[in-house]
């Protein structure tokens, strides 16, 4: 299972002058099991803050976040995360990065390598098993990061603009791969992006957020069947509709 329920979430930070900056205001969101949700918004709209709270890395001021009915109080092996910046441990080889979570759980060496190798195959990087992250390209590093997050078999996968730093071609390729992996492993995915194109390509639902204070502005269902073709007229039309609605209703003041 992987049902995520976010209720009346509030978060604010103290400014230097003592006033409070409201980052999230009364945010409610349900993500169904095995759903692929993209959270779309400009920088500063609180989307990363939201993701960090779902991850259990930050605590909210008020409100609750529950996964399968249990409140998230801290980092939890049921939740995997892929970070925006390169987060692979540079002192560990690719296979030891993927096996890290299993090692922390005390899984014996043989067993954890067997599992890690499965996920290494899943992201098509078997030939880089014993390479160090410094020997990989940016795209490969993020694929390993995906494999590392999946190796603990979480029910929920959080992704914070994971392809943001990559060139357009690599980015498109990784989006394809991610959907293939998602089809195979069937996780609930919450994916953060600021690209309408990326969101329309990936998501079952797009949640658009607006800043100051961060709140949900619109939610779009994307029913276009996968695999989606970026060059098709339906895709282009959908992308335009989303953009128009954002411009009408969710423009940044």
């Amino acid at each position, binding site marked *: 299972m992987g049902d995520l329920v976010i209720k009346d979430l509030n978060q604010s930070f103290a400014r230097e002058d003592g006033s409070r900056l409201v980052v999230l205001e009364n945010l409610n969101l349900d993500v169904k099991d095995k759903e692929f949700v993209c959270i779309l918004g400009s920088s500063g709209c609180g989307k990363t803050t939201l993701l960090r709270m779902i*991850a259990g*890395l930050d605590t909210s001021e008020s409100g609750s976040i529950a996964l399968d009915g249990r409140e998230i109080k*801290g*980092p939890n*092996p049921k*939740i*995997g*995360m892929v*970070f925006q*910046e*390169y*987060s*692979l*441990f*540079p*002192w*560990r080889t690719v296979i030891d990065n993927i096996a*890290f*979570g299993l090692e*922390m*759980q005390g899984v014996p060496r043989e067993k954890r390598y067997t599992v890690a190798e499965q996920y290494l195959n899943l992201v098509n990087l078997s030939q880089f098993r014993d390479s*160090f*992250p*410094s*020997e990989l390209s940016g795209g490969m590093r993020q694929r390993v990061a995906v494999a*590392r*997050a999946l190796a*603990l078999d979480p029910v929920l996968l959080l992704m914070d603009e994971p392809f943001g730093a990559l060139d357009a071609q690599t980015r498109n390729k990784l989006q394809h791969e991610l959907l293939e992996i998602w089809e195979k492993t069937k996780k609930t995915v919450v994916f953060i992006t600021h690209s309408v194109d990326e969101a329309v390509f990936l998501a079952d639902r797009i949640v658009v957020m607006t800043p100051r204070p961060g709140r949900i502005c619109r939610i779009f269902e994307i029913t276009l069947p996968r695999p989606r073709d970026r060059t098709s007229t339906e895709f282009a039309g959908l992308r335009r509709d989303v953009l128009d609605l954002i411009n009408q209703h969710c423009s940044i003041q």
Partner: protein
Amino acid sequence: MGRHAEKNGRDWRLGALAILVALAAWQFIAAVIIRYPFILPAPTDVASAFFSLVGKGDIFVDLGTSLVHFAIGLGLALLVGIPMGIIMGWNRRIEAVVDPLIELLRPIPPLAWIPFAIIWFGLTTFSAGFIIFIGAVFPIIINTYSGFRGVPRVFVEAGKMLGCTKDRDLVRYIALPAALPSVAAGIRIATGVGWMCLVAAELFGVSNYGLGQKLWFYYSLHQMDSVVVYMILLGLIGLAFDMVFRHYVDKKFLKWRTGEVA
């Protein structure tokens, strides 16, 4: 790496040539111009002094004694410096308490501790080790501490997301390996500083042997050729430490950095 090796190859031949030229010049100045071995012994004098010292065998006892002093000092510095650096780097409150004290003690030259070394520990092997400890411990603390300070937050958070949540595990599996290059640099500096303190640490008579002790002993006998033998030996061993350390540590523990530095 390839470019580096090629560069070293070229430097090696030029370097060897430079040493030969310097030796020849030294020989010429000492034997032809000055002609007074007390002021400047010639390389040939030094070489014959070396063989007679080796023949007597004392030189090996000296070497062993000095290595014991050095091992005590450096060993203690590692034992104290690394945990202290880790704690300071990991806990802001402890850092706030300890850092000012360290910054006050650190600028005191290690040799200024000699009187208290004698009062506290007497003319013992440990006393010499203590001076070397003072020289070596600060670079280890400072580098370990700054290494831990500099651990990227995303590594710690990635670790937490993967089930590494206890402080002890985070230090062991995330912070320590991430800080290792900095810790290693600190140990290397400490090795150099500690070795430099050795002569002074042996000078106040903690033992009848030791490279530093013998240097002074032969000076008092006006056997300057033997003094030069011990000087060169001190230099070469210091160099050997540095090379072995660099080679071993970089190959063994910091292999992952090969592609990173550039």
